[in-house]
């Protein structure tokens, strides 16, 4: 635990796996339809880019922290899009049910 708190420690391993996970999360969020409108996706992409350049500077701890945050930003973006879609679907169902009730009432 103490090791984690030492900034810039040379013993930090390269967070290759974390970067892979983050890239996956960003791709997944885009695949369900997240775009620049979702603020968390923009954050995820910016942090992922910063993490990648930190990797090149061997600033592994910085890269890991950015990548971890970017992963969750992307996952939140994905969850927001999916929730919004389900809300749209609910609204559409309610519309159709109202139309049906109206027609039934008119008969």
């Amino acid at each position: 635990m103490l090791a984690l708190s030492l900034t810039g420690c040379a013993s930090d391993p390269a967070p290759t796996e974390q970067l892979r996970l983050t890239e996956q999360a960003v791709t997944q969020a885009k695949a369900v339809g997240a775009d620049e409108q979702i603020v968390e996706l923009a954050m995820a992409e910016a942090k992922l880019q910063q993490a990648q350049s930190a990797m090149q500077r061997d600033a592994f701890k910085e890269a890991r922290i950015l990548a971890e945050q970017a992963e969750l930003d992307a996952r939140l973006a994905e969850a927001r899009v999916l929730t919004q879609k389900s809300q749209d679907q609910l609204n559409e169902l309610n519309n159709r049910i109202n139309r049906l009730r109206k027609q039934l009432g008119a008969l």
Partner: protein
Amino acid sequence: MAHKSFQAVKENSDVLRSAPKDVIRAGESLARADRLSSYWGSTDDVSHYAYLSQRYSEIAGQNSALSLNQERAAKLELERQRLQLALREAKLLSVQEQSNWLEEQIVSLATSETERGLVMTLGDVLFDAGQANLKASANRTVLKLVQFLQLNPRRVVRIEGYTDSRGDKLENLELSRARAQTVADVLIDLGIDSKRIEAQGHGESFPVAENASARGRAQNRRVEIVFSDAQGRLGATR
């Protein structure tokens, strides 16, 4: 802020039920942030884990909303299907109740209220040329006729066939009879009591137009359906 968010999701039973993993991770990250906060120089790490905890809480909240929406959508879909079925049945019923409307339709099809009573004309185009067979395009008219007779059980009909004046007189008479009988048979097949139907052929007699032109001849080639009044009284036969 992360503490508040975690507290909120932890105490929400819907979130716990639908996104337990994210809630657990939010708690773990928060505990980590709390532990780190006791070390000097760890401010960045503390805020990092607080950030992660906050995100896990938000993700848990979204996932919970998602699964609640999905449950609700499944119920609404059943409701929608139930209403759709009810609407279909109601429409069918209303068509059946609109016998008056149907009667008007038949009257408008019949076109002529003559001294023979109400007369409906089936044109030559509903038959195969020179044949007694009804074409599929006659189905609609025939179904309307059947429906009308079912809704007016006391009415009877006389079906009369006619031809133009070309060709052999006897053959024309035979064709006119056969066409009238075809219509009668179809009505009987569709459930109308044969006692309510009579069929006869008049051949070239009683033309409605001159036989000199193709157009006139086409008008003369026809089957007429003469309806009785509501008490079942038919006008005299020709």
